[in-house]
């Protein structure tokens, strides 16, 4: 035994004897994970979160979360002598007078944008492949909670520097709080400690931003990962991959190296952006002052669709019993997002109800093989995208010589008309792809090679698929639509009433498929060919 081995072995037994880790480690380090790029999206989210924690900690060393009024005396000349909050002054101090401060601020902000972007794309992967199905519904709900918290956390961070742009965002948040019927104005006074802006909100937002929400998110991320660990990772269909196994590489050494390396890549890309691309130049915007406002004030992109909804809302309000209800804020600011996030959280259960499929699933769907779900996803994304576009309507107007009113009307109509169109088109595309798959399995791949037969006929040579490919194209199961009878065995018409009818229709829609080739068809074709 070499000296090195002796030291390593000694250390290992020291830890094992005190923690009993060896048995657990042995099992853990050989745990297998499947390999696919889309399974690394969640990793990007997690690594961005780590970067946010580290860079955020750096920023807390100098940030002064106080609305105490100070006169700026720093390196940025055009603000010298201007009265501002200590928070804004310290954000300027970090940007101009702390070594590496601006870089860290920019890394923190870019990491936040990438964090949210990766989270959304990760969620899209989970949705479109059906990875949320039993037993992973709870993890999906945790994911929706993390998305919601991420949006709030990002917005609070955007508000902290107390520059004119971020103050404008807080002002809109205040309007949304006030739009809550009856209690809105009380809530607003409670949150801001008096009339807006008061002298409290930076301190309060700071505590929530650096302590409460990151703490909850960290706990949820831990639970999220533990569930992934316990339930094992899903995998794409393929030969040898079943509902009972996981085909992939062991954690040690393959994923230790890959995931560890990937962390540094994520850090590198974020730091690169932080170094070369300016983000949120607060010194140009000036300190927040409720009497000032800037054209082109925008939230960060993950709030942009909410802003777009508010911008699209027509000015409607009602006055009754001495109370004003601002529908123009209440509907786009609270009701629509509330509906969207509730439906999103419960979607796994909604789908189970529609299809009647309550079994466990560990093998993922190819999106085309579940046309209804894919179409629902495309529909939702279309809605969000149209509202996101409307969120930037002023910039679209100035940069593309358009009328802001026309963009708004396009969005108002588009929000209602385009999602259903996206649904229908996506569903048709999925069914066409299924048809193409069926053709491929039955008649092979079109090679583009034309051959002239002795009697002069031209044919294109079709190359049969490899068994592996054919397996991938046919591995999915196609469930029949739910049978919900018109009358039960006693002759009572329509026993489940409206609910039953709705469910029958939903089930029929969600099970609309191009039937995949049956073994019999395959055999017949093979006989014919030979």
């Amino acid at each position, binding site marked *: 035994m070499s000296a090195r081995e002796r030291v390593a072995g000694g250390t290992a037994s020291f830890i094992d004897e005190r923690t009993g880790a060896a048995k657990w480690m042995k099992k853990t380090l050989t745990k297998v994970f499947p*390999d696919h*790029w*889309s*399974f*690394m*999206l969640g*990793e*990007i989210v997690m690594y961005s979160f780590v970067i946010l924690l580290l860079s955020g900690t750096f920023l807390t060393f100098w940030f002064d979360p106080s609305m105490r009024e100070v006169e700026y005396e720093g390196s940025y*000349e*055009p*603000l*010298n*002598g*201007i009265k501002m909050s200590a928070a804004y002054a310290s954000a300027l101090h970090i940007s*101009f007078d702390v070594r590496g401060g601006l870089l860290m601020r*920019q890394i923190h902000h*870019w990491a936040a*944008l*990438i964090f949210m*972007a990766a989270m959304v794309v990760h969620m899209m992967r989970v949705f479109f492949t059906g990875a949320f199905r039993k037993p992973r519904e709870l993890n999906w709900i945790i994911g929706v909670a993390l998305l919601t918290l991420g949006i709030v956390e990002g917005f609070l961070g955007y508000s902290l520097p107390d520059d*004119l*742009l971020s103050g404008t965002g807080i002002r809109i948040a205040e309007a949304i709080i006030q739009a809550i019927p009856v209690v809105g104005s009380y809530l607003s006074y409670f949150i801001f400690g008096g009339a807006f802006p008061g002298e409290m909100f930076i301190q309060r937002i700071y505590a929530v931003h650096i302590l409460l929400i990151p703490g909850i998110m960290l706990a949820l991320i831990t639970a999220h990962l533990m569930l992934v660990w316990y339930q094992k990772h899903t995998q794409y269909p393929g030969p040898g991959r079943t509902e009972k196994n996981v085909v992939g590489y062991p954690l040690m050494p393959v994923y230790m190296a*890959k995931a560890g390396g*990937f962390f540094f*890549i*994520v850090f590198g*890309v*974020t730091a690169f952006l*932080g*170094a*070369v*691309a*300016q*983000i*949120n*130049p607060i*010194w*140009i*915007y000036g300190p927040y*002052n409720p*009497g*000032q*406002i*800037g*054209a*082109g*004030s*925008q*939230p*960060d*992109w993950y709030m942009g669709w909410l802003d777009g909804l508010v911008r699209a809302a027509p000015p409607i309000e009602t006055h009754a019993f001495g109370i004003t209800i601002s529908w123009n804020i209440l509907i786009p600011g609270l009701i629509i997002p509330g509906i969207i996030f509730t439906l999103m959280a419960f979607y796994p259960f909604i789908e189970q109800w529609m299809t009647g499929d309550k079994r466990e699933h560990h093998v993922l769907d190819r999106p085309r093989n579940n046309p209804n779900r894919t179409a629902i996803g495309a529909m939702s994304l279309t809605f969000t995208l149209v509202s996101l576009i409307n969120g*930037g*309507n*002023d*910039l679209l*107007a*100035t940069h593309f010589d*358009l*009328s*802001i009113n026309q963009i708004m009307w396009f969005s108002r109509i588009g929000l209602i008309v385009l999602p259903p169109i996206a649904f229908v088109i996506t569903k048709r595309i999925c069914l066409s792809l299924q048809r193409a798959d069926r053709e491929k399995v039955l008649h092979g791949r079109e090679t583009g090679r034309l051959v002239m037969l002795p009697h002069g006929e031209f044919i294109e040579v079709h190359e049969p698929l490899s068994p592996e490919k054919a397996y991938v194209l046919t591995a999915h199961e196609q469930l029949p639509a739910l049978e919900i009878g018109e009358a039960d065995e006693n002759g009572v018409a329509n026993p489940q009433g409206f609910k039953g009818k709705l469910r029958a229709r939903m089930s029929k829609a969600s099970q609309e498929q191009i039937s995949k080739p049956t073994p019999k068809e395959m055999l017949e074709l093979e006989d014919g060919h030979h």
Partner: protein
Amino acid sequence: MGKSVNKFFGFISRYRRHRFAGPLMLLSGLLFAGIGYTVAHAATEEVQVVLSSDKASLISEGKEIFARGCSSCHGLNAEGAGAAPSLIGVGAASVDFQVATGRMPMADMSQQAMRKDPVYDERETAALAAYVASLAPGPAAVTNEELFWERDGNTAEGGELFRTNCAMCHNLAGQGGALTQGKYAPTVMGVEPKHIYEAMVTGPQAMPVFANSVLTHEEKLSIIKWIKFVETEPSQGGAALGRVGPVTEGAVGFILGLGILIGIAVWLTTKAR
């Protein structure tokens, strides 16, 4: 003589369907028009230099230019008609702003006159301004001595005034912003200090007038000084991404940031096969 002419036309006739004949004709046509234009242009310029520069003749020259280039919309006596407003009493400052920034004469009757290369040179603009100012008193063009913003302005105060009075339309960073029905507040970056001043004094198009009772002369100069600072300051922290805020930042974060990372993820997982 006759024979050589015949020979020449014979040559042309023979090669008239040559594949280079068309392009050659086009080229010579362009060359001819270009030289002709240049010569004619130089000739008119010479005429202007010959004109004397006293006020009366400047006004009469301006009247002539006005009749040629402006009267079809603004009326022969600048009384305004239809879409074009009356110019009586708008003053020299307004004419200088509109003409020297190329907004007038308008290229097309769209939502608002846009900035383009000026049609009239400095002298013609001055003549037009003198003519319009002679119709009725109005804000005079600002002189260089009055416009000593480097000396008389205060950057920090200018920034504060800009945020209070200008940013709501022109954007916090002066990048411009959208107004209703296709109108817009243009960017204030890259605008001559004189024209910024004249815009504040005369309130062109959708812009309100900032009279001296609203913003004093020194305050206007401070705003100009702040704009010039922001325009020329180095972009701290990297590429400015158009300075239009979170929209481009979001796009860069999504496309460049996440795009690169997904690309690397694809690469990492393909290598393993």
